[in-house]
C-alpha cells in the first residue's frame, strides 16, 4: 500500500473505533464520570478533610491526578479489549484480515481508538474534578506526555488481552484481577512514603505506580520516584508490548486457524 492508502486505512479504523464508543456513550463515557464523581465526593470532600494533607497538598488535590490516571488506564484498556474481542467474536475481524492493510496499521488503529476513549474519559473526569477543587498544572507538557503514553501502553495491553481471549469472561479477568488491584495499590489514594520500607520496595514493582507518580508530578510538582526513570520505563513497556502484539498478529494468534 502507498503511504496515502495506509493513511486512509488507518483513519478509517480510528474513525470506526471512535464512532463505536461514542455510539454507546451511556456504556463507555457516562459510567466513569459518575464513578469518579463519587470518589471525589466520598474520598475528597467527606473523608479527605479528616485525613489532612498528603505530601503537602490537600487530600482532594492529591487524589485528583491519580483518579484521572485510573480512568485513563481502565478505559484505554477495556476499549481495545472489548472492541477487538467483539470483532473476533462477530468475525468482523476478517474484514481487516482479507484486506491489504498491514498488521501494524490494524494494531495502531485499535490503539489510537483506545487512546481516544481513555483520553476522552480523562478530560471528562478532569472537568468533573473542577466541581470539587481548583486544578493547577505545574508541568503541562509532562502531564500531557505521560497521560498520552499511558493511554497508549494500556491500549496495547487491551489488544493483547483480546487476541488471547476465547470468551467474553477472558476480557474481564485482567481488568478485575490485575489492573484494578495494581491501580489501587499504585499510589492513587496514598503516597508510598506512608508505607513501611519493605512495602515501598514491593510497590516499586508496580508499573502503574510510575505512571501515577509522573502524572502527579506534572500536576503538583511532587513525585515518590524519579521522573526520568519512570518515563524511560513507560517507553520501554510500550516498545516491548507493541512488539509482542505485532508478533502475535503476524502469527495470527487467536485469529487464524
Amino acid at each position, binding site marked *: *500500500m*502507498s503511504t*496515502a*492508502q*495506509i493513511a*486512509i*486505512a488507518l*483513519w*478509517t*479504523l480510528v474513525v*470506526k473505533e471512535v*464512532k463505536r464508543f461514542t*455510539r454507546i456513550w451511556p456504556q463507555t463515557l457516562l459510567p466513569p464520570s459518575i464513578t469518579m464523581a463519587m470518589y471525589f465526593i466520598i474520598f475528597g470532600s467527606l473523608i479527605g478533610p479528616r485525613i489532612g494533607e498528603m505530601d503537602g497538598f490537600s487530600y482532594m488535590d492529591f487524589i485528583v491526578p491519580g483518579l484521572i490516571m485510573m480512568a485513563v488506564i481502565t478505559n484505554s484498556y477495556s476499549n481495545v479489549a472489548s472492541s477487538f474481542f*467483539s*470483532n473476533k467474536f*462477530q*468475525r*468482523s475481524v*476478517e*474484514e*481487516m*484480515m*482479507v*484486506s*491489504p*492493510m*498491514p498488521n501494524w496499521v490494524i494494531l495502531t488503529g485499535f490503539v489510537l481508538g483506545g487512546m481516544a476513549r481513555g483520553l476522552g474519559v480523562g478530560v471528562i473526569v478532569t472537568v468533573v474534578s473542577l466541581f470539587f477543587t481548583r486544578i493547577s498544572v505545574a508541568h503541562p507538557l509532562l502531564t500531557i506526555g505521560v497521560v498520552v503514553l499511558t493511554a497508549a501502553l494500556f491500549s496495547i495491553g487491551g489488544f493483547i488481552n483480546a487476541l488471547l481471549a476465547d470468551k467474553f469472561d477472558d476480557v474481564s479477568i485482567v481488568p478485575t484481577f490485575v489492573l484494578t488491584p495494581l491501580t489501587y495499590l499504585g499510589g492513587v489514594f496514598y503516597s508510598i512514603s506512608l508505607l513501611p520500607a519493605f512495602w515501598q520496595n514491593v510497590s516499586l514493582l508496580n508499573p502503574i505506580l510510575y505512571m501515577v507518580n509522573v502524572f502527579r508530578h506534572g500536576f503538583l510538582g511532587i513525585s515518590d520516584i524519579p521522573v526520568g526513570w519512570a518515563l524511560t520505563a513507560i517507553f520501554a513497556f510500550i516498545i516491548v508490548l507493541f512488539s509482542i502484539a505485532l508478533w502475535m498478529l503476524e502469527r*495470527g494468534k487467536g485469529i*487464524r*486457524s
Partner: protein
Amino acid sequence: MAEPALSIRGLTKVYGNGFHALKGIDLDVEQGDFFALLGPNGAGKSTTLGVVCSLVQKTAGQVSIFGIDIDRDFARAKYHLGVVPQEFNFNQFEKVLDIVLAQAGYYGMPRHEALPRAEQLLKDLGLWDKRSGSARMLSGGMKRRLMIARALMHRPKLLILDEPTAGVDIELRRSMWDYMRRINREEGTTIILTTHYLEEAESLCRNVAIINHGEIVRNTSVRELLAELDTETFLLDLARPVEQAPHVEGFEVHKVEGAQLAVVVHRGQRLNDVFAALGEQGIEVVSMRNRANRLEEMFVSMVEQGNGVQRELDSMGVSK
C-alpha cells in the same frame, strides 16, 4: 498466455489437532472463469478458500493470485481478491453504508471514490433504502447481499463466494444469480463459488472441481462432467395410484408413493420405451421431472465412490 486468476500447488493444511484438511491439492482457475468448488461438508472447500483469503495458515504449498505469490506479496495479491464468506462477518450494530465504506477504507480508497461506488453497489443489490439502518435489522438475504456489496467495493478481479445463497429464497437466489452472471460477463470478474445447491453450480459455472477428504477428485468443465453421467432418475406422476411398481423390461422402476414412480434411465435407453410399456399396462403419466439435478447425481455418485474407496483403504489399514 495470461496468468491464472488462482493457482494452487501442493496445498497442504494440517490443523493443530492433527486433522489433515488438505492433502497437497493442485488447482488452477483461469481468468474470467465462473468456477465451482464442490464437496461434502468437511471436504476442505472452506479451508482451501480460507488459505487463499489469509484466514487460514497453510502448512505447505504455493498459492498465487494473478501470478502474485501470496508468500512474497500477499498485500498486493489481496487487492485482486473479494471475499463473501459463508457466515455473516460484519458488525451487526453498524450502519449498512458504514460497513461498505469502511471496507473501501481498508483498501485505501478515498471517500470521494468510495461513496459513489457504495451507492451504485447498494442500489444494484437493492439495499440503498436500507443504507442508514443498522445491519442487524436486515433480513438474511439482505445480509448476504450486503456482504457481496462489501466484497465488490474495491473492484476485485477475483471474487470468492462461499455459499452465497445459503438460506436465500428462490426468487432472491435467481436475482443474485443474474447479478453474479452480469459481473462475470460484463466486468470480467473471475468468480469461484462453493455451494450446496448443485443446480446453482450447473446453472452458473463453466468449470468445476470436486474436493473430497482434502483431495481434488475431479477438475473439469461442467459440460464434460455432465456428459459422463451414466444414469438419470426421473419421477413420473401418475393419473391414478398403483398397487405396486410395474415391471418395465430393461428399466429399474420403483414406487415412490401411490401415484408416483421413480425410473432409472441409463445412457442409451429411451424414455419413450418406458411410456410405451406403462401405456400398455394402462398406467397414464401426467407429468415428469428429474429426481435431482444432473450435476447432483454425478456429485453424489463421485463422492460415494470416493467414500467407498476410502472405506476400503481404511479397512485394509492403508492411508491415502
